[in-house]
């Protein structure tokens, strides 16, 4: 009998958060974050590759991306209104990503540095304009380069 009541507790539990108001609030937040991301994306287009400011803008975009993920998981997927123990079983394993990202990206970077140091042919092939690249694009490139110099 006890089991029966708890089952109905779960199925009809409307105690935790929600409401139409919250849905619309989160929708607006997600839309605004997306618009800001897009604005940054458009703004970033004219910046030079590998310049500090471009990296900073990319960092800001990643932070906004994580904010969007938080709102989707927390409110749309309702995780914020679940019991703390349950939240932890989902969120704590995600902490592995911190290590994954740091380890793998730095490994990629190290591979780049090693190849650039020991394989000069590779450097030439990957950093200089290729004659095989379509003329239309290379013309555009030249125009851009001319503008920067």
């Amino acid at each position, binding site marked *: 009998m006890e089991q029966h009541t*708890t089952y109905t507790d779960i199925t009809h539990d409307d105690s935790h958060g929600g409401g139409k108001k919250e849905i619309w609030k989160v929708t607006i937040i997600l*839309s605004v974050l997306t618009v800001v991301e*897009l604005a940054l994306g458009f703004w970033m287009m004219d910046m030079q590759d590998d310049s500090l400011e471009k990296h900073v803008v990319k960092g800001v975009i990643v932070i906004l991306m994580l904010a969007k993920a938080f709102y989707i998981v927390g409110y749309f997927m309702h995780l914020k209104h679940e019991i703390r*123990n*349950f939240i932890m079983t*989902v969120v704590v394993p995600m902490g592995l990503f911190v290590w994954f990202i740091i380890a793998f990206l730095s490994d*990629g970077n190290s*591979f780049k540095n090693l190849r650039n140091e020991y394989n000069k042919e590779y450097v030439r092939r990957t950093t200089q*304009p290729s004659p095989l690249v379509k003329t239309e694009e290379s013309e555009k490139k030249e125009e851009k380069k001319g503008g920067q110099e």
Partner: protein
Amino acid sequence: MSTTTATATSPKYWGGGRSPFNVEYGKVMMWYFLMSDAFTFGAFLIAYGTTRFSANGWPNPNEVFQSYPGGTHAPLVFVSIMTFILIISSVTMVLAVQAGHNMNRRGVVINLVLTILGGLAFLSCQAWEWTHLFHEGAWWGRNPFPNSNGSLGHQDFTNFFFTITGFHGFHVFSGVVINVVMLIMTLSGVFDKRGHYLMIEKAGLYWHFVDLVWVFVFTCFYLI
């Protein structure tokens, strides 16, 4: 009654006779499945990031993805439409779940139909984009787009693009199929007979996860 049990002291959750997480079994399992799926997508995206970090040159996404049906030279425009379609379909899914909470069958049906339409719209956009890129010469193993420094395009650019957006598109497709099944079950009154619409919540979790993954894919491929 429900509030008193929900605010019970924590040892009682593990005292037996009730769900210690106050979540239905199927929903817990859906969460853990999505967690494993998150690691799959995470592995894909980290592999992409590692390759990009190891490369001297990479195609400029603003030059590759600058087309929309009937035009070109509009970077980010088409993909932002796709993003908004997915966000809106996520909202209608939340509304469907909420209607289910209130046992409002009509509300569930309307919002599920809207969600399905959103999913189909997204898939159509993706189909158009893939076809367009294919006609430009891009496919697995073929990259016609030069790196932004003018050197020959990195081969893995298209490999990662088609693999990851394809895997995501497959998730959208299966999400649409799940939602269609939910719609049929709702229309035939299965949930009313059952006394609850919990199944819609599980389908909803999956659908939101699809939206969540797109947030990452969109940022990693089109913006950065």
